[in-house]
């Protein structure tokens, strides 16, 4: 008589386990490295923040020139003054009186609640003709919420071997006096073209 036998369940289960391991092994654990994968096109630039106004000199007069703005940069006009006017602007006769190497900066913290903006100049020994002063003040004044403008110079008290003479202290006094002045663009209305 033929013995009645069944498939040993243990062996079948072991085979299934081995198959499962073979299936799951390549995926592995943890985060696997990949090759470069595309995720769509390059982002198209559509954002266009508010323009900033820059006052340039043409024919001895101050003229308002618009420049594209940047996000969160309300005082970008001051920075734009330090950049040479573009080829088109130069051809139209615009120029800036700001000497090379002078950098004007203003941060959001430099605007006090009264609307007074402090513009920091990186050099103290700048000769400020009225037209240049008007360029800077009007550019700064064109920024939102700015009512008055003050220029701030770096003060370096250099103690030389002979000590500060009366001439030097006179210059310092002059500097402090100039730093205390508060300007508005309206003061330069006689220089503006329109």
């Amino acid at each position, binding site marked *: 008589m033929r013995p009645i036998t069944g498939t040993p*369940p243990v062996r079948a289960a072991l085979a299934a386990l081995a198959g499962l391991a073979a299936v799951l092994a390549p995926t592995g654990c943890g985060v696997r490295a990949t090759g470069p994968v595309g995720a769509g096109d390059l982002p198209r630039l559509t954002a266009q923040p508010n323009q900033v106004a820059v006052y340039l000199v043409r024919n001895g007069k101050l003229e308002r020139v618009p420049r594209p703005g940047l996000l969160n940069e309300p005082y970008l006009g001051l*920075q*734009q003054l330090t950049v040479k006017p573009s080829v088109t602007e130069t051809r139209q006769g615009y120029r800036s009186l700001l000497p090379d190497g002078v950098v004007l900066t203003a941060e959001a913290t430099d605007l006090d609640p009264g609307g007074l903006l402090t513009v920091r100049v990186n050099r103290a020994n700048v000769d400020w003709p009225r037209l240049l002063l008007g360029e800077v003040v009007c550019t700064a004044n064109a920024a939102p919420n700015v009512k008055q403008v003050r220029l701030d110079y770096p003060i370096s008290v250099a103690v030389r071997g002979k000590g500060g003479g009366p001439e030097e202290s006179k210059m310092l006094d002059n500097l402090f006096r100039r730093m205390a002045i508060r300007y508005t663009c309206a003061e330069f209305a006689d220089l503006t073209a329109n």
Partner: protein
Amino acid sequence: MSGGARLRSWLARPWPVRPWPVRMRPLRPVARYVLPSAPRLRPMGLRTRLTAAFVAVALLAALLASGISYVLVRRAVLQRVQDTEISDARQTVARYVPATAPPGVGEIVRQQLRVALNNGDRQAWVTDVPDPVAGVSPARNLRGLAGRALGVPVSQDFLEQAVRITVFQRVRSHGHAYLLIGMWPGPPDGATWLDPRPLVIVAVSLRHEEQELASLTRALLIADGLAVLMALVMALAATRGVLRPVRVLGRAARALGDGDLSARVGERGRDELTDLARTFNRTADQLERMVGELRAKDAASRRFVADVSHELRTPLTSMVAMAEVLAEDGGEAARLVAVETRRLGALVGHLIEISRFDAGAAALVLDDVVVADAVAATLDARGWTDEAAVDGPPDLVVRLDPRRLDVIVANLVGNALRHGGTPVRVTFVPERDGVELTVADTGPGIPQDLLPLIFNRFVKAEAARSRSDGSGLGLSIALENARLHGGSLAVANAPDGGAVFTLWLPSADEEDEK
């Protein structure tokens, strides 16, 4: 003592009262088949195999489920972080980089992007890339710079793609995974960028995701372990349920095999095991019925033999007595009749003796017996002292039934003398708390095919001896007597010819007056 007187005294012995008590005896009383007690957990027993199968299935299912869920969760987690980070980077770039940029603001925009994109897990590297010159990739020479700035290796392939499309890549560095995102925002149609556009590469550490996946793995492994544990418990419970009826069936089958034909099992439930139990019960019913019929027939035929023997005894007694008288008057025929009649009487006597064993009416009358004296007395009574050589310790005392020992020894020696021939050697030695007695002759021995049958009734060594003196019951009676003592009787042929009968009788206990 004359023959008639001996016969009369023999007939005067008490006989069991009829009808014979019928006692059911097991089919195979000698070879009691006892299974070794089953150990609780066999290596390849049902319990082990069922439990292993349960556990394997549970492990398989748990691993499969957790493996699939792990893969799905991992994909979802990585997809989420990738989508979030890529969308975040694209939005940031689109917010901070204007469509038309004023001149000289490259560094301001780059700084804004760096500040906006950098946070705890994210590092951005932004550099200006001039518009591609024909044949020269804008991404050349940037690999090392990007890798050093981000602390994550950036492949050239990635950079080449990053100047064409938004691209991401997962990389591993120092055992941690990072997500690299690269893009080079394109100029809007018609607008001009006075400065080179910034190429943005962001490296996002996937530390949180890795921790998340590690804790998921831990949780899944714990769950798998619990599942296997539960499967083990359930398997043990299930096998208990399956194995209990199997054990009951096994016990019943063993009882049936041991001769208890009334063994049955309960038939509760409606599963396969219950079917098996029902089949077992039906089989046992059939077996009991058939065995009962066979036994009844057997008992009837034995009773018939006993009855016939008893019925024959009375007329035979008269015949023996008459024949003796006739033989004394002389005449060859008369003497022949007397001899044959005596043989007939002996045969009937043997039949009655056998009937007593069959009826279970034989009893032992125990006494302390000096074996040497008993054997000598047996040989002496039959006049065989000169024909048999006895060898054994003279002081061996065994407690047994002396009359039955006499019957056994007389039958064995008589058989040896009749069929084997002299000299017959009777040897006895103390053995296993009893006595082992060997009777060896020097005859031709017993034919091989007759050896297993030699103790059966009416079996004779050769057809020619059908008319010999023996009744054909002597060895059966000897065996029954040995068994009655709880001893054994075996036969074998000696290597140098001659049959050797080996009897072993245990010494009975003092109070065992069975």
